[in-house]
């Protein structure tokens, strides 16, 4: 479904990604792990269209979308839950969810289903988006991305700054998301969490893929080496 070939990215003089190549099949859950600054977020942002690339650096469902802007990428079916949640402060919880459906693709996700997935949000629906706890905001951010009925959901560090129980609650929602047929690619700093929920993983190190394999089949020592680059 998704083929990345020689994807590079730079911020001014600083090159963050060097010729990344990887593949993703429909229905898979793939984790991207790596230390801070390894380029994981940059990678997701490139996929989401916030950073432009050569057209065939990213091929999604047969179409070359590497140079498309973010709003068109969403229409093609890739939705990003951005790092840091980034809810809209002027919008209420419900409006944040609704704006996710601005460019809705055909599918099953709706306000009702999001409230089913994250029941606590229904009580908070009128609150301003940012007047929520970190975990609740993360739920809204995920729900917002789901509202567009994406084929591929990109999750950027959804556990960042959250308490362990909250992280558990959020990841508990993953099976329901996958049950719908959504393919998920997630970036996680917590290696164990990442490997627990994913089928395969890629390890990034200083802008390059240093290791890939099936989650659960690769030893921790090997992962540590690839993670830290020692």
């Amino acid at each position, binding site marked *: 479904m998704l083929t990345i070939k020689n994807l590079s990215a730079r911020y001014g003089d600083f090159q963050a990604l060097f010729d990344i190549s990887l593949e993703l099949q429909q229905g898979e859950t793939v984790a991207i792990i790596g230390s801070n600054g390894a380029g994981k977020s940059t990678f997701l942002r490139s996929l*989401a*269209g*916030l950073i432009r690339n050569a057209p065939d650096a990213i091929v999604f469902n047969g179409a070359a979308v590497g140079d498309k*802007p*973010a*709003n068109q990428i*969403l*229409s093609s079916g890739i*939705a*990003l839950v*951005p790092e840091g949640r*980034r809810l*809209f*402060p*002027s*919008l209420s919880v419900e*409006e944040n969810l*609704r*704006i*996710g459906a*601005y*460019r809705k693709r055909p599918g099953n996700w709706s306000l009702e289903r999001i409230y089913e997935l994250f029941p606590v949000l229904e009580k908070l629906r009128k609150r301003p988006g940012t007047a929520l706890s970190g975990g609740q905001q993360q739920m809204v951010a995920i729900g*917002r*991305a789901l509202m*567009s009925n994406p084929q591929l959901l990109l999750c950027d560090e959804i556990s960042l700054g959250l308490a362990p129980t909250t992280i558990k609650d959020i990841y508990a929602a993953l099976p329901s998301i996958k049950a719908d047929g959504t393919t998920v690619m997630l970036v996680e700093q917590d290696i164990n969490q990442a490997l627990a929920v994913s089928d395969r993983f890629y390890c990034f190190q200083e802008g390059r893929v240093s290791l890939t394999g099936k989650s659960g089949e690769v030893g921790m020592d090997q992962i540590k080496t690839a993670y830290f680059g020692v």
Partner: protein
Amino acid sequence: MDWINTVLQGVLLGGLYAMFAVGLSLIFGVMRLVNIAHGDFIVLASYLALVVVSHFGLSPLASLAVVVPIMFILGYVLQRVLLNRTLGNDILPPLLVTFGLSIILQNGLMQVFSADSQKLSQGELEVASVSMGSLSVGVMPLIVFCTAVVIIGGLQLLFYKSSIGRAFRGTSDDQHTAQLMGINNARIFGIAMALAMAVVSIAAVFLSIRTSFDPTVGPARLLYGFEAVIIGGLGSLWGTLAGGVILGVAQAVGAKIDPGWQILAGHLVFLAILVVRPRGLFPRSVD
């Protein structure tokens, strides 16, 4: 009794000023852009109405059917072709480009239409009045005020109850994340400017019926609109109506004291409010 009449006139005039201000407020709210040529676009719309009225024999109010769509499209094109390029972190480009536009528009209109004063006539409606108790209220000013209320109410509905309204507010909060929602920023900004121009054109026609105009009166309209926005408070459309009303009343009272003091009175009240309440009377907390 006379003073009540004066204040009433001022309130109704405030409706017109609020219409000048709404466009400014809208654009600033959505894209943090202040269009210095705003007043000159009002004048442009007036001349457009003049052309439509002279060529098609329509009444000014009827000409709205032609003028509003044209200005709507003009606003969209202006934003997408020119003004979108100026948006960014630097305040200088949008300010200076729109300032340049203002000068170009004024001189351009002077070139095409000469400096002669013009006025649009709505016939009897202009001088018709209704009695409200012992007061006599002009029909035209009443229509203008009610139109202002309807426009502001409509825009409020649009902003808070519609999908595109959410898009406006989201984009104004965070442009990049808005893109992640599938929102095309360039297009949203274009639509916002188009809306602003549509409101501008309605205000322009009402203005041209009420008083005469020439290529140089744009800046004055910009200043009134600006003062109404600041007095009312940034970020609040109803606040802008209140601001317009206060300005209108200040001008009406000033004019009653001495006709030459009309505009100056407005400026002085504005400056006074700026000193005492810099954020305006009804500011929105989130800006």
